[in-house]
């Protein structure tokens, strides 16, 4: 039932306010016809299934045409950057992973790379850790793009697209759980390396599901990219050209869909990306269809990188995954005990019955943390959503003085007005989904 309230003040007193709860649009339109009113302001969200989280859209409509788009943010703001200032540098990894929770690993990566630059550790990260990082980051990219494509399909009414995408994403999440213990919010990357090595059999498992993942991506492509309904809804919709992207600071698949091959993995390589063979995917349509095509192609390139990582890991054999520096690396190694958790028994034996100094060192390093020389750095990575920059400031203490994430989702959402204004209301959700915002990252 829609309810009609006429309790608005002064200049808005003549305007009617409707609360749509589903299935009652006929009633509302009839009332609008009766009032001879064409101009309608639609509030969408913050609780709406197709706003990708708690985003609020305020759409001013003339009939079915959107004339003005405004966004309300902040519903998921949790002060992560502020919290980081009162936790150690290592704990920051567990906080940053909670920002863009669809590609958690990448947030950790950006944070850790920034801290390593600040602590002048960048060149001392062991090779094995670098390769595992690339492996995990590319799997996270695949997972993020699958969520984007699948939920976009779902929003257009194709539930099958979502089930295919989430089926393949499940493989990635299983691998993450096997390696890090958690499906998301992993806190697997640490300043200096990784929290632990890959468990036995993880690579074999990944190799086992690899062909089916590739097949799933091909399934998705075959169902979607040439599908006339999909094309009708996405081709020529939400066009944002290169100049607009530059002005609005748009990066990632949205920018690459305008034909500019800006990909920091190639342009400013980090974590050894210069040692991998892959292409930067671009198209020049600059529309919603192009953005999905870029993402779809990127997933295949990521699978290529994953295969190269597996080969490299098998060729290099075992090795350290943490920087060889006792003032930074935690002395204990996690090891699965009979109860399914725990630390290495040798280390526990050493600190509990052999060396008081080891115990003190362990305690100080974990509770106090290590110091990072004063200064500031900016490190940007190619996140699944675009350029993800971390500005980290240290005052020489054991905690960050200030950390700021330049979130691509936050920045890219600014383009909503340009994408939607002048289009129809049915394209609003299509345009929004093509930005692929994750509100955990937007609001932080």
């Amino acid at each position, binding site marked *: 039932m829609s309810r009609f309230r006429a309790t608005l003040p002064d200049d808005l007193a003549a305007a009617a306010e409707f609360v749509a709860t589903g299935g009652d649009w006929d009633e509302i339109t009839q009332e609008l016809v009766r009032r001879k009113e064409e101009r309608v302001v639609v509030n969408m969200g913050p609780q709406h299934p197709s706003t990708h989280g708690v985003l609020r859209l305020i759409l001013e409509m003339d009939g079915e045409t959107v004339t003005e788009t405004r966004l309300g*943010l*902040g519903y998921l703001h949790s*002060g992560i950057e502020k919290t980081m200032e009162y936790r150690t540098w290592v704990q920051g990894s567990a906080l940053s992973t909670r920002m863009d929770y669809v590609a958690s690993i990448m947030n950790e990566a950006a944070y850790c790379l920034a801290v390593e630059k600040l602590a002048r550790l960048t060149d001392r990260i062991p090779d094995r850790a670098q390769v595992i990082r690339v492996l995990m980051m590319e799997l996270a990219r695949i997972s993020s793009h699958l969520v984007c494509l699948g939920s976009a399909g779902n929003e257009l009414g194709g539930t099958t697209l979502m089930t295919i995408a989430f089926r393949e994403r499940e493989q990635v999440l299983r691998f993450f759980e096997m390696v890090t213990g958690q499906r998301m919010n992993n806190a697997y990357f640490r300043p200096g390396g990784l929290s632990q090595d890959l468990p036995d059999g993880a690579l074999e498992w990944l190799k086992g599901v690899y062909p089916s993942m590739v097949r799933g991506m091909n399934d998705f492509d075959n169902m979607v990219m040439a599908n006339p309904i999909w094309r009708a809804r996405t081709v020529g919709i939400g066009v944002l050209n290169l100049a607009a992207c530059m002005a609005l600071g748009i990066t990632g698949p949205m920018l690459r869909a305008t034909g500019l091959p800006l990909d920091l993995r190639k342009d400013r390589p980090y974590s050894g990306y210069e040692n991998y063979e892959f292409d930067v995917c671009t198209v020049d349509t600059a529309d919603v269809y192009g953005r999905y095509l870029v993402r779809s192609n990127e997933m295949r390139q990521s699978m290529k990188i994953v295969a190269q990582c597996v080969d490299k890991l098998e060729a290099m054999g075992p090795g350290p995954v943490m920087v060889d520096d006792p003032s930074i690396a935690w002395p204990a190694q996690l090891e699965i005990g009979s109860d399914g958790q725990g630390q290495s028994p040798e280390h526990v034996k050493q600190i509990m019955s052999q060396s008081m100094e080891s115990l003190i060192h362990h305690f100080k390093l974990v509770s106090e943390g290590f110091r990072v020389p004063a200064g500031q750095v900016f490190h940007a990575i190619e996140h699944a959503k675009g350029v993800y920059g971390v500005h980290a400031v240290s005052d020489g203490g054991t905690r960050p003085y200030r950390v700021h994430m330049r979130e691509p989702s936050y920045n890219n959402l600014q383009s909503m007005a340009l994408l939607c204004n002048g289009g129809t209301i049915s394209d609003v959700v299509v345009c929004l989904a093509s930005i692929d915002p994750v509100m955990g990252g937007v609001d932080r």
Partner: protein
Amino acid sequence: MTVLDPDAGEVVEQRQGAFGAHDSGDTSGFGGLTRLVELPGASPRPYGGWFDAAVDALTEDLDEAGASQAIEKVVVDRDELTLFIRRQDLKITAELLRDDPDLRFELSLGVNGVHYPGDAGRELHAVYHLMSVTHGRRVIRLEVTVPDADPHLPSLVEVYPTQDWHERETYDMFGIIFDGHPSLARILLPNDWVGHPQRKDYPLGGIDVRFKGATVPPPDQRRNYS
């Protein structure tokens, strides 16, 4: 621009005591400790890499534009170039960085605030990162300081429209006012929020513990090692 001793840092704060606890009786003797928080200071030439050419090109442009005093100092640290810019010259500097064919920093990566309450007269810093798509995706940092008593900065929205939300966030979190911004409203916090939470003097809440009236102090008053 004066050439300074490369080892001379910029002191932004002087801290007393140890472990963050100041109001309890000091029985350890560590309470008398003094530590200076020293950030990297101005760098001497040559800066290395592309930095020299970029600074030269910008200096020349600024001279032509009648803003020869715009660059307060140049800091090169951890292979990153930071230019401290006078606030009244920020906009012309950004325009020149964007438009000069030798510089071409077309892509703005937003602005971030940092609050140094101990840096008298320069408490609030606004930090901009710009990327050049034309010249190998290199990144330059602009830093502008404003006093707490007069936290006004020119808005860069006209130069880089993407600054819109970034400036709103920095206003929301630090209270830096960007003059000329089309609608400088809060963005992440509600409009009626009091205070700017990322400032170091923003009061933090403690946690009530229901045990003999004890409370856990707010995080900034707990024992710490910074």
